[in-house]
C-alpha cells in the first residue's frame, strides 16, 4: 500500500500551524517529533498515566490516544502555551513553590489537567481536585504537594481576578 503524508492545518497555542503526518501517527508524536513541542510527555502510550494531557478545543484529552489528523481545524493547547512570555502561569509558579515535582515527567500533564479543572471550576474542593487528577500518575513526588500546588494556584487566581 502506498502511504502518503497528510497535510494538517490546525491552531496550536493560539498560532495557526501546519504539519505533515502519517494517518497512523498519534497527535502526541506529531507534537513532539513533527512540531518540536516536546513539553508534552509520553509515559505509557496507552491512556493510563496522563503525561500526554493536552487540550483539544478546550477539552482535556490524552494525546497518545488521539490520531494526529484529528487536529485538522481544531485548537490545541499544550504546556508550552500556558505561560505568557516569561511570566509563568500561576499553576507553573505554584508547582515550583511547593516543590511539586522531582523528575518532572508527569508535571506538564498535571499542569494541563489542572488548568482544565480550573477553567471549568475555579474553586474546586480538595476531593474534586483529587478525583479530577486521578488520571495523572506521578512516580516520584507523591500527590500531596501536587494537590497543594493546584489548590494554592486556584486561590491565588481567584484573588487576582477580584
Amino acid at each position: 500500500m502506498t502511504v502518503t503524508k497528510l497535510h494538517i492545518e490546525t491552531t496550536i497555542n493560539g498560532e495557526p500551524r501546519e504539519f505533515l503526518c502519517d494517518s497512523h501517527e498519534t497527535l502526541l508524536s506529531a507534537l513532539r517529533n513533527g512540531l518540536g513541542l516536546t513539553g508534552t510527555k509520553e509515559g505509557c502510550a496507552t491512556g493510563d498515566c496522563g503525561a500526554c494531557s493536552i487540550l483539544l478545543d478546550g477539552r482535556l484529552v490524552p494525546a497518545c490516544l488521539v490520531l494526529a489528523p484529528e487536529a485538522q481545524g481544531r485548537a490545541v493547547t499544550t504546556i508550552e502555551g500556558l505561560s505568557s512570555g516569561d511570566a509563568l502561569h500561576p499553576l507553573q509558579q505554584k508547582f515550583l513553590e511547593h516543590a511539586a515535582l522531582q523528575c518532572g515527567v508527569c508535571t506538564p500533564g498535571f499542569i494541563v489537567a489542572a488548568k482544565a479543572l480550573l477553567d471549568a471550576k475555579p474553586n474546586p474542593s480538595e476531593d474534586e481536585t483529587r478525583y479530577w487528577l486521578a488520571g495523572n500518575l506521578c512516580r516520584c513526588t507523591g500527590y500531596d504537594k501536587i494537590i497543594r500546588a493546584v489548590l494554592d494556584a486556584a486561590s491565588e487566581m481567584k484573588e487576582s481576578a477580584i
Partner: protein
Amino acid sequence: MKSFTNANPRDMAHAVTLMRQARQRGLTSVLAGGGSDLLGMMKERLVAPDVLVNLKAIKGLDRVTPDGGGVAIGGLITLDALAGHPLIRRQYAVLAESAESVATPQIRNVATLAGNICQRPWCWYYRNGFKCLKNGGATCYSITGENEFHAIFGGGPSYIVHPSDTAPPLVALDARFRIAGPTGERVVPAADFFTLPKDDAARENVLKEDEVLAGIVLPAMRAGARSRYHKVLDREAWTHAVVSAAIVLDIDRDVCRSARIVLGGVAPIPWRLPEVEKMLAGQRITPELAAGAGEAAVAGARPLAKNGYKVPLTRVMVARAIIATADLGLRNAD
C-alpha cells in the same frame, strides 16, 4: 502501529459501505469511535486494519433527543457529555453515574458510548497477545491461570467479564440498540445484544460483518422509578469494575412495584438477576429482604480458583445497593 488509510464516512450508511468496499478489495477495516480502546490494541498489534473508519467524522450522532416519552442517544456521544447531560442525570441516573465512573477525565472526553459498549475484553491474556479464544486460538488461559478478575457466572469456554460500565445500566433500563447494516437498520433489545462465549467465544455481541452500533433508545421512566450504579474498584478511581450493579426500582408508596438488577464484572455479558427481581416485586424493601436478595444473587455462582472473593463481594454489594436505591440508607444493610 501498522499504517492504514483513514476513511471518513458522511453518515452511518456510508460507514457500512466503506467497510463492505474494503472487504471486497481484500482489505481489513475497523470502526473507530474515540479510539481509547482501539488505539491501545492497534499499538499492541492485536488489531492491524488496512482501513480505519473514523465514525467521529459523522455529524449529529452525539446528541440526546426526546423520543416518544423516552430519549434517543446518538452512539457517538462522549461519556463526559452523557454523564453531564441534565435529562440523563435526572431521569436515568444509573446511566449517568456509570458513564461518570469510567476511567479518567481525559478518557471520558474522547470515549464514545458506542465504543464503551463495543470495547473488547480487558482480560490480561488477551491484551498481552496470548493466542486465546478471543484471539483466534482454542484455549482460555484464565481457567488454569491468573483468574482473579474473571467470570463467576456464565463462563465457558471463555471466562472474560464484560468490561463496559454502561452496559449493565442499559440492560436494566430496557434500552433498545439501533444497529445500521447493509440492509438498513435493525433494533435489538439491550438484553439480546450481548452474547455468551458458549454461542461464539470470539465475540461479545450480535454485531455482524459490516454492522455499526448507531444509537440507543431508552423508554420513558415511571414516575416512582429511581436508579443507581454501584461500582466496586480495586482503587478509588480510574479503572474497570471488579464487580458492579445497576439497580432500577419502581417504588410506589414504599412498595417496590418492579425491579431490575443487572451486574457488571461477574460474567461475559451484563448479568441480569430475574429471580432477585421477582423477590422484590410487590414487596416493601427492608434490610432483611435486601440481605435475602444478596444471597439469591450469588446462588448460581461458580468461581474459579482465584476469584472466589467475588461471591461475598457481590452478595453484600447487591444487598447494600438495593437498600441505597430504595433510599433507606445504609444503616442496617449488613
